[in-house]
């Protein structure tokens, strides 16, 4: 029984995962369709790619199709989640990623659904797509037809769901509060130096820094240390500090290629075999 088998496999792998079972390497994400078994011909891969890229551009959701030979000693659920987590399909915060994984020699497949799509692609729905749409085709060795029909159904369901509009060239600014604070302190230090002279400014900045650390952590030693170093820095020339800050700012993101958007997965979806 699938359930018993999966339960024992999950529990076993849970306990012995890192050391004992050799986990096979995960493929890299370059385009929506990754066929490592040469089941699909170039034209079929192209058609699927176009369809899935269009979905990503118009709807935002990222659906990837992967065909491998075997997941070896790993259960398809564990492999699928590992891959989905590595590729981070779907947009960050929206988690609208889906992975259709086919292990051809194992005769197993799985639809792995991101958190954001669990409502429309529930476990029951995924199971039905697998059992009623994909598997009947696979049983007759019609792999492209099965994948295409499954993908079409999944896209149809995703289209029906209201998701945030995909942004063009969106940038994720990950600013650490601490850096902002340091920058503000330095700016203030520079200003005070000109106003009050080096020594006085150093004392004030040292006191502020010390107080801030004390307020945040109540660790006396850390506060004293922070105050002391801020004092030293303000006393000396601040150019070193400014250069450091300039280099650390600006995280660029280059476009091009199909890349995961940072979506999360929780183990939702369904598996099947033919």
């Amino acid at each position, binding site marked *: 029984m699938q*359930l018993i*088998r999966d339960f024992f496999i999950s529990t076993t792998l849970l306990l012995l995962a890192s050391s004992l079972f050799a986990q096979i390497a995960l493929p890299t994400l370059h385009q929506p369709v990754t066929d490592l078994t040469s089941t699909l011909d170039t034209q079929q891969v192209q058609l699927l790619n176009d369809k899935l890229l269009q979905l990503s551009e118009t709807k935002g959701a990222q659906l990837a199709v992967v065909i491998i030979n075997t997941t070896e000693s790993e259960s398809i659920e564990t492999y699928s989640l590992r891959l989905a987590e590595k590729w981070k399909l779907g947009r960050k915060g929206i988690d609208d990623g889906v992975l259709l994984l086919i292990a051809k020699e194992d005769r197993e497949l799985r639809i792995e659904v991101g958190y954001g799509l669990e409502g429309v692609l529930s*476990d029951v729905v995924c199971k039905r797509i697998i059992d009623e749409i994909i598997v009947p085709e696979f049983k007759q060795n019609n792999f492209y037809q099965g994948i295409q029909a499954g993908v079409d159904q999944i896209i149809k369901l995703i289209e029906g769901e209201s998701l945030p509009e995909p942004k063009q060239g969106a940038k994720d600014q990950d600013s650490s509060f*601490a850096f902002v604070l340091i920058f503000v302190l330095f700016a203030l230090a520079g200003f005070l130096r000109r106003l009050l002279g080096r020594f006085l400014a150093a004392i004030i900045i040292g006191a502020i820094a010390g107080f801030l650390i004390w307020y945040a952590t109540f660790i006396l030693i*850390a506060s004293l240390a922070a105050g002391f170093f801020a004092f030293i*820095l303000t006393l000396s020339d601040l150019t*070193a500090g400014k250069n450091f800050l300039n280099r650390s700012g600006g995280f660029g993101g280059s476009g091009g290629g199909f890349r995961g958007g940072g979506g999360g997965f929780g*183990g939702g979806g369904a598996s099947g075999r033919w």
Partner: protein
Amino acid sequence: MRSLQLLSLLCFCLTLTACGYNDLQVQDESVKTHWSEVINQYQRRADLVPNLVSTVKGYAAHEKGVLLEVTNARAKVGSIQITSDMANQEAALRQFQQAQSELSSALSRLLMVTENYPELKSDALFRDLMAQLEGTENRIAVARNRYIQSIQEYNATVRKFPSNLTAKMFDFEVKPNFTVENEKEISTPPKVEFN
């Protein structure tokens, strides 16, 4: 003079991390979040049981023993008071694990019994419930895995130097982890059946 500035700047930034204090905060929160997720998924499974029992009863009413076992196991799981601090107390955690494990065993036995009823297996409602149950079991496994990892990360920070000093200062203790239940059962490799 320049190298002194750089050194001072570096030390200033290091003091902001205050010897693991922030790490402990973040990781403690992470443990709490992951624990909630574990509880949620176990609850989700428990919620499926009544429907499952009634569907199976429709086809296999005389399998009283197994059905009763599942119902009782679910009741036991439901009777355990889940407190927010439960995950930190070894005994409470053990009790919780035990009850969930009993429900797992009861469910396995029930499903093995259903193998003898092809009409039940082709019932649409039963198939849907099975899909939901399998999905939930997978989610439980994922939630447990992530919870265990978060505990390991947290415990490592509590133990490592110098963050262990900070941990002692603020009463951050090592948290108990999920243990191996039914070690013998798990050590035998699962049989893979091809239908």
